[in-house]
């Protein structure tokens, strides 16, 4: 069974349909990139996949024992966060809240995992630093580490490189790609990635599947198929 199946889903807000007839599946280990123009409904789709919105029609089913609170999420930065007095460690740990239920404190296991995730993303030395003093790329790593604490199966990334400079952007993409592939020697399982992006080039470099959201959404099992399609040609040649 697929990790996530979208069947005839229509999305919209306030009674207005934005996207219709969305059909796609995500298998375990996939790297799906969701492309589309501004206002095409990418963010609405993201929110629906996270369970924050219900689709207007159609069904989104999670499979393979995946639950809604087991999806890690990397949201776009908000204004509130820019001058927020929080240490890196505090933020990363907050990723565990999805399965802590009513327990008011973090346990040892969670603290260890948070440490591992910080080391993995190269921010362990910054753990006591204040979030607002970090560079844009470092901040994204912190939020990514938090998302990793929330999941072992699937990550949803909303424009993960928005506002980053080209060098840091590439580092970020490499990091995401390594998370997707996993690392058997360090006992890291591959994690399925769903990424919303403007960046066609990155999608072609890293993704295994592409979903193009527009008036008539199209789903491609491989990037070669996307490159061959009419919409893909239009989009990659701009």
């Amino acid at each position, binding site marked *: 069974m697929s990790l996530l199946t979208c069947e005839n889903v229509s999305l919209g807000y306030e009674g207005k349909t934005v996207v219709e007839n969305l059909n796609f599946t995500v298998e375990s280990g996939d790297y799906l990139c969701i492309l589309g123009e501004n206002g095409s409904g990418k963010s609405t789709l993201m929110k629906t996949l996270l369970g924050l919105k219900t689709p207007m029609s159609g069904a989104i089913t999670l499979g393979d024992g995946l639950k809604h609170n087991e999806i890690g*999420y990397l949201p776009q930065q908000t204004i509130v966060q820019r001058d927020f*007095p929080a240490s890196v*460690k*505090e933020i990363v740990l907050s990723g565990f809240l*999805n399965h802590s239920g009513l327990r*008011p404190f973090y346990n040892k296991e969670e603290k260890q995992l948070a440490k591992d995730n910080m080391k993995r993303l190269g921010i362990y030395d910054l753990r006591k630093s204040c979030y607002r003093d970090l560079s844009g790329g470092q901040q994204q790593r912190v939020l990514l580490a938090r998302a990793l604490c929330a999941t072992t199966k699937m990550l949803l990334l909303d424009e993960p490189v928005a506002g980053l400079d080209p060098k840091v952007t590439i580092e970020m993409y490499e990091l995401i790609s390594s998370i997707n592939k996993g690392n058997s020697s360090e006992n890291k399982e591959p994690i399925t990635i769903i990424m919303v992006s403007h960046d066609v080039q990155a999608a072609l470099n890293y993704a295994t599947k592409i979903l193009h959201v527009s008036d008539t959404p199209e789903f491609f099992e491989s990037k070669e198929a996307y490159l061959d399609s009419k919409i893909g040609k239009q989009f990659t040649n701009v």
Partner: protein
Amino acid sequence: MSDIIATLMEYMEFPFVRRAIIVGVLIAFCSSLLGVTLVLKRFSFIGDGLSHVAFAAMCIAMVLQFTNNMLLILPITVIAAILMLKTGQNARINGDAAVAMMSVGSLAIGYLLLNVFSTSSNISGDVCSTLFGATSILTLTDMDVTICIVMSIVVLVFYVFFYHKIFAVTFDENFAKATGIRAGVYNMSMAVIIAVIIVLAMNLVGSLLISALVIFPALSAMRIFKNFKSVVICSAAFSVICAVLGLLISLLQGTPVGSTIVAVDIVGFMLFSGIGTIMGVNRA
């Protein structure tokens, strides 16, 4: 110096002074805890707006000659808190303008009602003491003290038990929601608690000055500390120390309680800003 201490000791003999200090400390403590979240979530204007609504409710209670004001003021303020939170989140209505409207509106209506229907012979005195707290802090009853203690315990337990969730909701509501934390419930509980604290604090500093108790400790702590836990702890300590200092000064000098506490808060804030700047220079 020993004179001052002797005088203070003498004052402490009076039960009403002890009550005032207990209530002052508790209210300062609770308001500063919630203040951190309110300031960080850009909700500090809600505290200000609510205090004006509480003023209007107080005026209505006076006009209707309620024996127990709380029964009317508390529900009205809680409802206003929930309404303000909702409009604050609604992108279509301009949230801050709506709150400003409610806030000024209730101030005007409250004063108008009091003037037209009042049975009291000293309207301006009543208004002044509701707005600026005046001496009512020294006329607290044992009942008021008990309410304050119970309320503070509730706030403290809520805060400690849900500390990490409050952090998550404050830092990143979308992430919190996406990972299954019911952010709406937390926001709502915060709004209700802040409404209750504001109503209680009206006795202490009066409705115009309440926001100072909410805002100053959090902002001061944020000048120096760089992680959430230290900011929360520091702001609680800051608030309690300023409240005690302010109360003592006002006892000794006979100044109005509310404005003295706020004045001490301002001095504290400037001190912390200075320290923060120096520390920042050293770090850079």
